[in-house]
C-alpha cells in the first residue's frame, strides 16, 4: 500500500514485520549463535512415575568434547520454578524442580543435562547417561480418586470453587434438570518452531542474557532473577522472532533456567534447541478436563442454576500458572447467559503426564464446549429449537455493563459492552439459518449424516491493570515506539505502528517498534491473555499524543503561530488551514536537542512516555455456525460451511484481525477433530510425532466466512479495542460438536473432544 488511508487505525495495511520473514533473514532462537558456545541436551525420564535410584554419567563425562553433565545434585542450590504471579503456599510443594530430584513424575521430565561442544556430540553423550529408576504405578485418570503426591500431600492440591446464589434451591424449583458427563482431550499450541534458549554471561558488563525469550520477558526476568539470586539490573531477556506462541512458548521451563546457570558456571554461552519429540512431551500441554455438569431450568428453558463438578488433569507438576486455568474456567463458564444460581468445583489434580498450563483461549475452549453442549441438551429436553433456548437466556444489551460475582485471572467479571442477541440475529441471517436447517433435515431424511451446529460465546481479553510505552522522534524524522510488549507472530509491530502513526501524523512505515527487550524499557506486560493490543496500543496512543503536544508547542514557536492552529500531516507540522510553511518532525527533534539554542526551557528530546490503566478486562463476543457431514464408512468429518461472527469493538487492522480468527479457527478445528495427546495405561505418551499428534493441513480447513463487526466498542479504553487473539479458537470445539451431534440426529451422543473417526465410527456402527 502506498497511499495513505483516511486513518491508519482501521486500515488493512501490510505488515512491517514481513520483509525479513519472507526473505529468510529472521532471527529465531535457532538462528542465533555466540562464539565458543556449548550445546545442551536433556536426558529425560523414560518412565511416567518412579524413584530415581541412580544416574550414572561416567561414560558421558568421559566423551571428548563434553564439558559437563549435571544432575539434580549439581544444582541443589536452585529452588523449584515458581509461580509467575507470586508465591502460593498451598501449591508450592507441587512445583517442578529444574532437574528431577528423587522421583520422576512424567515421561520427558528432565533428569540430567549434558553440555558439549557440538549438538550431535551432546546427543551422543546424553545417550550414554544411564538411569536406574524404580517404577511405580502412574496416575493417568484425573477423575479417579486422588493418590499420594508425596508423604503428606495428595494429588489434589486444591479445589477451585466459584459460585453464588442458592444452587440447591434452584434445583428443587426446576421444571427440568439436564445432566451431562463431558470431556475435553489433551491438546497444546504446538508452534512450528520448537523451544530454544541461549544463555550468555557477559562478565565485562556483569550481565546475564537469555536469548530466545518470548511472551512475558519482563515478568520472567523478575522470576528468574529471584531464582538465581541476581539483581534484575544484571539479567536481561531478549525476544527475537518467535515461531508461534499460543500461550505455551515463553513460559519459564527447566531448560531456560539451565542455560542461564550453565552460562554462569561453565563460563561459555550455552545454546539449547529441543527436537519435536521432546517438544510434544515436555512443553506445556493444556485443556484436559472432565465435567459432571447439571443444569436446572424452568418450563420455558430459562436457566435457574448450574452445578459443575469437574476434574482438571494438571499432569506431573504445577507450573508457572498455578491453578489459574481451572479457576478462570469457573469464572467464565456462564458465558453470555443469565444465570441466577451457580456453583463450580474444579478438582485440580496431578497425574503422571506432561504438566499443563495455558493454550490459546485457556479455560474458554473447554467452557464453551461444556456450556453449549448443555444448551443443546436443554433445547432437546424441552422440545425447543437450539436458537430459541439461547435467545431466552442471553444477557440483553440494555443490561450492560453486566457484573457477575465471579473472578477471572483475579479480575471481577464485568462484561463491558455487547449486544449478544443482535449478533445472533446477524449470524443467523448471514448463513440463512432457517433454509440451512430445512436443507440438512431433508438430507438427513434421505440417509445422509449431515448437521448444523451453533455456539454463542463471550471471550475475555485485555487483562490489565497497567502498561506503558515510550515514543521518541529521531532527528531523521523516524519514530521509535519502545514497548514492553511481546510479538509471537500476531502483527504486534504493525498494530503499534498504526496507532502511533495515526496519533502522531506520520506514515506507519516510519515507525519502528521495540518489544521483548528488558534492556530497553523497565516494565512490560508482554503478550498473553489477548492483551497486547488492548493495553500496549492504548499506552502507545497516550505516549504519541504527549509527543504530539510537545511537537506542536515547539513548532508554534518556530512558525510563530498558536499551537491550536497547527496540525501534523505526513510527518510535518503544518497550519490547519493548509497555508504557509511546514516544519518536519525531524527538524523539531533537532530544535529539541539538549544543546539547541531554540529549545528554551523545554525538556530535551522529542519523546514522551505514556501509561494506560484499565479497571477491568474487556469482553468481545461472537457466534459460530457450522455445517458438518460425516462419512459413515470412515467416521471422517467434513465441514461444509463455517461462519465466524465476532465483535471486536474496534479493529486497528481488519486484515490482521481476520488472520487471527482464521488461524485460531484452524487450531480449534484441530482440537475438535484431530489433536490429542494420548497415553497408555503405563503413562507412556503415544503422541510424540506429527504422525501421531495430527495438526490440521490445508486440506482439512474449509472455506470460512468471517463476519467482523464493531458494534460494541470497549468502554474500558479510549480506543475502544477488544482482544482478537483468542476468539477464533474459543468456540470451535463447541460448534463442531453441535454440528456433528446434529448430523447423528441430535441425540446428544457427542460428549467428548476430539471427535475422532474412531469415536464416530463406533457410534454409527453400534446402530446397525
Amino acid at each position: 500500500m502506498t497511499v495513505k488511508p483516511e486513518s491508519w487505525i482501521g486500515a488493512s495495511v501490510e505488515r512491517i514485520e514481513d520483509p525479513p520473514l519472507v526473505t529468510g533473514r529472521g532471527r529465531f532462537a535457532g538462528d542465533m549463535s555466540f562464539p565458543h558456545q556449548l550445546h545442551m541436551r536433556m536426558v529425560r525420564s523414560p518412565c511416567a512415575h518412579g524413584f530415581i535410584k541412580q544416574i550414572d554419567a561416567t561414560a558421558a563425562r568421559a566423551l571428548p568434547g563434553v564439558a559437563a553433565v549435571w544432575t539434580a545434585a549439581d544444582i541443589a542450590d536452585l529452588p523449584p520454578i515458581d509461580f509467575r504471579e507470586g508465591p502460593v503456599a498451598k501449591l508450592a510443594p507441587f512445583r517442578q524442580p529444574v532437574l528431577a530430584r528423587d522421583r520422576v513424575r512424567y515421561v520427558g521430565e528432565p533428569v540430567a543435562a549434558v553440555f558439549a561442544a557440538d549438538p550431535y556430540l551432546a546427543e551422543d553423550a546424553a545417550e550414554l547417561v544411564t538411569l536406574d529408576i524404580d517404577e511405580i504405578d502412574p496416575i493417568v485418570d484425573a477423575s479417579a480418586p486422588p493418590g499420594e503426591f508425596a508423604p503428606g500431600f495428595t494429588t489434589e492440591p486444591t479445589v477451585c470453587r466459584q459460585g453464588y446464589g442458592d444452587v440447591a434451591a434452584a434445583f428443587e424449583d426446576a421444571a427440568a434438570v439436564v445432566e451431562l458427563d463431558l470431556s475435553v482431550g489433551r491438546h497444546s499450541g504446538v508452534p512450528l518452531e520448537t523451544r530454544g534458549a541461549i544463555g550468555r554471561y557477559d562478565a565485562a558488563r556483569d550481565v546475564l542474557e537469555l536469548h530466545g525469550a518470548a511472551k512475558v520477558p519482563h515478568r520472567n526476568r523478575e522470576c528468574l532473577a529471584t531464582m538465581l539470586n541476581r539483581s534484575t539490573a544484571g539479567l536481561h531477556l531478549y525476544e527475537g522472532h518467535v515461531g508461534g506462541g499460543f500461550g505455551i512458548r515463553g513460559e519459564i521451563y527447566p531448560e531456560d533456567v539451565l542455560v542461564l546457570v550453565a552460562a554462569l558456571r561453565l563460563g561459555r554461552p550455552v545454546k539449547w534447541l529441543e527436537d519435536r519429540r521432546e517438544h510434544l512431551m515436555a512443553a506445556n500441554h493444556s485443556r484436559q478436563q472432565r465435567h459432571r455438569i447439571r443444569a436446572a431450568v424452568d418450563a420455558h428453558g430459562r436457566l435457574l442454576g448450574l452445578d459443575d463438578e469437574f476434574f482438571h488433569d494438571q499432569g506431573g507438576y504445577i507450573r508457572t500458572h498455578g491453578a489459574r486455568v481451572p479457576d478462570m474456567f469457573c469464572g467464565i463458564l456462564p458465558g453470555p447467559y443469565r444465570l441466577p444460581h451457580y456453583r463450580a468445583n474444579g478438582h485440580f489434580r496431578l497425574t503422571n503426564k506432561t504438566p499443563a498450563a495455558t493454550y490459546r483461549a485457556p479455560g474458554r475452549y473447554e467452557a464453551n464446549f461444556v456450556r453449549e453442549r448443555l444448551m443443546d441438551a436443554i433445547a432437546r429436553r424441552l422440545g425447543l429449537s437450539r436458537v430459541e433456548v439461547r435467545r431466552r437466556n442471553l444477557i440483553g444489551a440494555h443490561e450492560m455493563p453486566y457484573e457477575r460475582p465471579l473472578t477471572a485471572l483475579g479480575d471481577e467479571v464485568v462484561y463491558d459492552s455487547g449486544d449478544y442477541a443482535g449478533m445472533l440475529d446477524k449470524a443467523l441471517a448471514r448463513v440463512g439459518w432457517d433454509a440451512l436447517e430445512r436443507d440438512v433435515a431433508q438430507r438427513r431424511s434421505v440417509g445422509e449424516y449431515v448437521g448444523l451446529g451453533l455456539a454463542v460465546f463471550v471471550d475475555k481479553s485485555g487483562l490489565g491493570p497497567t502498561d506503558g510505552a515510550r515514543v521518541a522522534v529521531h532527528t531523521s524524522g523516524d519514530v521509535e515506539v519502545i514497548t514492553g510488549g511481546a510479538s509471537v507472530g500476531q502483527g504486534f509491530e504493525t498494530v503499534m505502528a498504526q496507532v502511533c502513526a495515526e496519533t502522531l501524523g506520520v506514515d506507519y512505515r516510519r515507525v519502528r517498534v521495540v518489544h521483548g527487550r528488558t534492556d530497553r524499557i523497565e516494565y512490560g506486560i508482554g503478550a498473553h491473555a489477548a492483551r497486547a493490543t488492548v493495553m500496549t496500543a492504548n499506552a502507545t496512543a497516550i505516549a504519541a499524543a504527549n509527543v504530539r503536544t510537545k511537537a506542536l508547542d515547539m513548532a508554534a514557536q518556530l512558525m510563530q503561530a498558536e499551537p491550536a492552529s497547527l496540525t501534523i500531516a505526513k510527518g510535518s507540522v503544518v497550519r490547519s488551514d493548509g497555508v504557509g510553511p511546514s516544519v518536519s518532525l525531524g527538524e523539531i527533534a533537532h530544535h529539541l536537542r539538549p544543546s539547541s539554542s531554540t529549545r528554551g526551557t523545554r525538556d530535551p528530546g522529542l519523546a514522551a512516555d505514556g501509561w494506560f490503566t484499565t479497571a477491568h478486562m474487556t469482553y468481545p463476543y461472537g457466534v459460530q455456525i457450522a455445517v458438518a457431514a460425516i462419512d459413515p464408512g470412515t467416521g471422517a468429518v467434513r465441514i461444509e460451511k463455517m461462519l465466524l461472527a465476532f465483535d471486536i469493538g474496534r479493529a486497528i487492522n481488519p486484515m490482521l484481525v481476520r488472520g487471527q480468527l482464521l488461524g485460531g479457527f484452524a487450531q480449534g478445528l484441530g482440537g475438535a477433530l484431530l489433536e490429542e495427546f494420548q497415553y497408555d495405561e503405563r503413562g507412556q505418551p503415544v503422541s510424540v510425532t506429527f504422525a501421531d499428534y495430527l495438526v490440521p493441513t490445508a486440506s482439512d480447513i474449509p472455506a470460512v466466512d468471517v463476519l467482523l463487526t464493531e458494534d460494541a466498542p470497549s468502554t474500558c479504553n479510549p480506543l475502544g479495542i477488544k482482544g482478537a487473539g483468542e476468539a477464533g479458537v474459543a468456540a470451535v470445539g463447541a460448534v463442531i460438536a453441535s454440528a456433528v451431534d446434529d448430523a447423528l440426529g441430535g441425540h446428544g451422543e457427542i460428549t467428548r473432544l476430539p471427535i475422532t473417526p474412531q469415536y464416530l465410527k463406533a457410534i454409527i456402527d453400534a446402530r446397525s
Partner: protein
Amino acid sequence: MTERRAITLSINGTQYNVTVEPRRTLVDVIRDDCGQTGTHIGCEHGVCGACTVLIDGEPVRACLMFAVQADGRSIRTVEGLQQGDKLHPLQQAFMRHHALQCGFCTPGFLMLAVGALEKRPDLDDEELVDLLSANLCRCTGYENIIKAVRAAAADMKA
C-alpha cells in the same frame, strides 16, 4: 562417527566447501556450516516441511537427507528468491495477502510453491490445496497461503 568427508554444496549459486560427518543432515549443514539460516527445522521427521529446499529443481525435505547425499548438487533456499532489491512474486504475494504470521513455516511454503509453480504454472485449485497440504502452518489457517500462491501463480505467468 567422527570420520569427516569433504563435500561441495552449491547453494543459490554459491559454492560451499565443507567437511562434515556423514551423519549430519542437509538442513543442519545448510544452516550451521553454510550460515543460511532461512531454512528452518520444525520436526526432523519429514512431516512439517519447514525445511523444504529445492535440489535440482525438486522440493526436498532437508531434514530427511544427509548433506553428503547433496554433494555437488544445486540447492536453492529462500535466501535465493529475491533478485537484487526485487522480491519474488511469491514473496510479494505472501505479504500482500497476509499469508504469514510468525513466519517460521514461510520459507518452506515459499520453496514448495516455487518448485511446483516453475514446473506447473497452471495448477488448479484442488491441486494447489493438495500441494500445500504437504507442509504445516500453525498460525494462518492456510486460507491466506492458498490465496497468495494462487495470486503469485498469476503474476508469474504474466
